[in-house]
């Protein structure tokens, strides 16, 4: 066969067209839902606690996409008419951004009967377009073999790290929720406000010679395990997960001022499959949340959930945690990040 230029161009155009078509998000099968999960133990917990009961009740299938909220939100923003994901797990600040961008559906008890047992403030915090289903608290995690008398408050933490008594591992600005669970929490404890974060930056300046920064949770654990740091700012649930894995030298303190409640929100993008409501209702069901909490050691939000004795001693009660003003933080977050870059570095 002899190919001439016309045939070649035609073939090329067809190939490019096919590639272009391939780039278009194809709607999932009618009875298939695409939900989201963080990796590791999170993914397994999502599959066991929410996907399995959803599939058993509806006969539908749920595929689990791994990743992170910033990536998932960008995917929905890129194609809001035909979102590639049906249920999003979000950080509270991104949940506000997604809600303000009118990208998400309203959560109502009519659509989600189990929403009736979720405190209204959690749905309000997502502007009615989502709710929180799980939460952890950022506090002080320490190596018991090195730190016999751990600081009980954020203020004591700052003073004792600044004095050189401890080397602390704190989240770097590269970690997505640092502005909320570290900057806001420490600033709030030291008397600052959302519009005045000087107390936080002054504290960081005092501690700077005795700080190391973690870019991700595993990084923090390495700092403690390798002896690079003695203590640091970390999450309660992740600390207890290490304990359950046999790490007996690690412990957690919720500071006296109260750590920041770092919640996990769920949302349904507009134009996503209506099957998402069935899945979301399973996410909010007390029996499923109870199982989820036992696996992850984090608190859950359905007021009907009764924790086991072991978990009850670990989960920080909502009354002892501070709910950050996520919407206000979202407004000034970029200014905080810019100031961090200029005064602290990466």
């Amino acid at each position, binding site marked *: 066969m002899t190919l001439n230029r016309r045939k070649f161009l035609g073939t090329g155009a067809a190939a490019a067209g096919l590639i272009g078509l391939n780039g278009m998000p194809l709607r999932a099968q009618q009875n298939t839902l695409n939900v989201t999960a963080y990796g590791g133990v999170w993914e397994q917990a999502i599959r066991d606690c929410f996907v399995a009961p959803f599939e058993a009740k509806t006969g539908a299938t749920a595929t689990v996409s791994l990743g992170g909220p910033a990536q998932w939100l960008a995917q929905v923003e890129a194609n809001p008419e035909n979102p590639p994901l049906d249920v999003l797990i979000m950080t509270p600040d991104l949940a506000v951004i997604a809600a303000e961008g009118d990208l998400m559906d309203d959560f109502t008890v009519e659509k989600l009967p189990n929403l009736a047992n979720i405190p209204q403030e959690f749905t309000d915090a997502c502007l009615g377009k989502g709710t929180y289903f799980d939460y952890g608290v950022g506090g002080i995690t320490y190596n018991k073999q090195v730190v016999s008398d751990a600081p009980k408050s954020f203020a004591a933490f700052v003073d004792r790290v600044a004095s050189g008594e401890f080397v602390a591992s704190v989240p770097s600005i590269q970690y997505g929720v640092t502005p909320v669970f570290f900057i806001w929490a420490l600033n709030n404890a030291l008397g600052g406000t959302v519009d005045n974060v000087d107390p936080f930056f002054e504290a960081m300046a005092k501690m700077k010679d005795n700080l190391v920064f973690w870019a991700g949770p595993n990084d923090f654990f390495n700092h403690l395990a*390798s*002896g690079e740091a003695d203590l640091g700012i970390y999450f309660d649930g992740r600390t207890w997960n290490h304990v359950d894995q046999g790490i007996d030298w690690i412990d957690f303190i919720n500071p006296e001022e109260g750590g920041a409640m770092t919640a996990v929100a769920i949302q349904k993008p507009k134009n996503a499959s209506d099957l998402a409501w069935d899945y979301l209702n399973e996410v909010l069901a007390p029996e499923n949340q109870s199982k989820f909490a036992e696996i992850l050691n984090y608190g859950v939000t359905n007021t009907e959930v009764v924790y086991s004795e072991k978990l009850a001693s670990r989960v920080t009660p909502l009354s002892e945690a501070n709910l950050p003003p996520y919407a206000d933080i979202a407004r000034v977050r970029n200014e905080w990040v810019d100031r961090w870059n200029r005064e602290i570095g*990466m």
Partner: protein
Amino acid sequence: MSKTAQISERTRRALLLAPALIFLAVFFVMPLVDNSARSFIGEDGSFTLARYTAFLTDSFYLGVILETVVLSAAVTVISVVIAYPVAYVLVRKAGRFSGLIIFLLIAPLLTSIIMRTFGWQVLFARRGLINQWLVTDLGLLDTPLRWLNTPGLAIAALVHVLVPFAVLSIASVLQGVDRRLEEGALVLGASRFRTFFEVTLPLTLDGIGTGAILVFMIANGSFVTLVLLGGGFQTLPLLIYQQFNTTRDFALASTMSTILLVIALACLWLQLRLVRRQGA
């Protein structure tokens, strides 16, 4: 050859090139153009250079650009200096052990960069292996040294990752050097030192250039090592990641990545010019 046959031949060549060209166009050129275009579009949809003006007139961001280039250049120089003797031994002295040396060079690349970086953390932590030797086992120090989050360790970790690229580039050129030229210089009375610097080294500039370009480009975009080992460096790749992950300022991220691309291309052009001039 008839005209039809000529067209057929040209078409066949084009067809052979087509998969690679389409792949590059769709997965490299189009995303790159789309990404750069985002940086020139204002919030009202009009063309703007405001982000570039703001970025390039801010002393903080200029410092970040300088730091990115200086870090990449330092890593490149150190890597090439380390790589040349290794490449020399590999080609000229190793004999039947050359395969083993190549394996040892490449073996670290088979491990995830994250695992290798965590390895540096374990070795150089305050109560890590090195400090344990220095303080406890050998008693040379009273208190452990703080290695992590220092510029030196971050550079060392980058060099560790990138040296194999320089070694392999230099070795492949060194392999092709005509030994008779060096023997000629020696016979004519040049010392081994002079022979190396006036014959061998100039003949391997292409390899040094290729290795330096490879190392510089990878160092220029390096991310994981700097995130995990810190070193206090503020580089463009770290800021770009931050715009996606924390602040969601995609337009600023596009601006930074376009600037990073221009810097990389400018340095590539300069290095190529330098190597060609030296080799001429």
